[in-house]
């Protein structure tokens, strides 16, 4: 089955880490894609760079910032292929954000 993992982090948490640890975490993220079960991995620029777009009455409206105003922000996402939810959970649990105060949301992808 194909799953999407959405990685939520708390902005600033990363900077709070000592340099060596931050480098180790970044290396962990960079290495995610080495696992063949990951189909794609994307790390996002910080939430301050977000633009939310709506089309109302034919006009394109833009707001500065992410769609949902929450403490945790979407920091990245992955698509992966796993046998079942347990395998997806196992992979999600290895993502650093999951143990660093953030959370990883797992959603099955609609089959086409």
């Amino acid at each position: 089955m194909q799953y999407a993992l959405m990685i939520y982090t708390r902005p600033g948490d990363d900077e709070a880490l000592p340099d060596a640890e931050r480098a180790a975490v970044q290396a962990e993220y960079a290495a995610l894609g080495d696992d063949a079960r990951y189909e794609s991995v994307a790390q996002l620029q910080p939430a301050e760079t977000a633009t939310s777009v709506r089309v109302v009455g034919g006009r394109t409206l833009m707001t500065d910032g992410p769609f949902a105003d929450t403490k945790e922000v979407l920091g990245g996402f992955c698509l992966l292929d796993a046998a079942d939810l347990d395998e997806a959970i196992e992979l999600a649990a290895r993502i650093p954000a999951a143990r660093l105060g953030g959370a990883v949301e797992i959603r099955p992808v609609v089959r086409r």
Partner: protein
Amino acid sequence: MLDDVFRDEWARVLASLVGFLGDFDRAEDAAQEAFTIAAERWPVSGMPDNPGAWLVTTARNRAIDRIRRDRTLTQKIQLLPAPEAAGDEVDDTVIKDDRLELIFTCCHPALPLDGQVALTLRALGGLETADIARAFLVSEETMKRRLTRAKTKIKATGIPFAVPGPQLIPERLDAVLAVIYLIYNEGYSGRVDLGAEAIRLGRVLASLMPDQPEVHGLLALMVIHHARRRARFSGEDLVLLDDQDRSLWDPHQIAEGRAMLDRAIELGGRGPYVVQAAIASLQTRRRIDWPQVARLYRRLVDLTGSPVVELNHAVAVAQAGDPAAALRAVDRLDLDGYVYLHSTRGELLRRLGRHDQAREAYRRALELATSTPERRFLSRRLEQL
């Protein structure tokens, strides 16, 4: 008679069908159909030699027939193996027991807890949706939705129909035991005998995982508590352990529970359920060794970190002869909204002769108590002061 066979076979048949069809709803429909046919035929033509195999084979054949009929609508159905037998011919081979897979699927932590509980009672316990609804005091419609949501999530998210690997077992088994214990504890309030139901589930689990000490520990705990159930109430009134009429206890169940506890300890069990069973067992002795009970509660505090267990520890310390130390421990707890904190304080203060403060504590407990027997009990205590 037929009812007993049905209840015993339901989980086995359903488990086998979920494994075969890979779909909870289809499996349930097919099982239901096979049981209906059996209910019509068996009283007339007699029960087959192997009722379980008959039910599984019949249900499989019906499911395959139905899938064939629905084929145009169900192109998405997973590849099905070719049917081995047509019609109702019964395959006499031994049906593999898939109940453990079913238990772990129903108690998967990705499901909401109320869904895990409902699904376990429906799938493993073979209870009707209406009975589960009555037990939890919700409408049948609400319970049906709860079950549907859980089944939908299993299918949509790919929750596996499997026993987890060895590294996952401790964590996942905890979830299963928590569901069974929750069902057990519900047993004291509802109308359906969920206590007996939880014990049935515990027995099935113990037979399927005979080497897991905590499974035997939980079963022992439930059986020993259950043995005392008739003494817990006198009419509408709650009766505390000290005042219980021991002739109402079931000595066979107590002996059985102790044997289960011995088995758990033999297997090296030192976990929270084993410790709680050991406490329950000590409390059925004619002379209760309170210092030992206190030591076991201390261990349980270390295992769980729970302030409620700390409160129980304090009670054991008081029973062992030191109500002043118990009161100091209780006053350190951050459990202000908990009725038993205040009733315990009331009792300790009464024993220490501080009656005004005791009354105050009982009044606070009364404000927080919700059930009628509890309120009656507390009012009586207050009057006696």
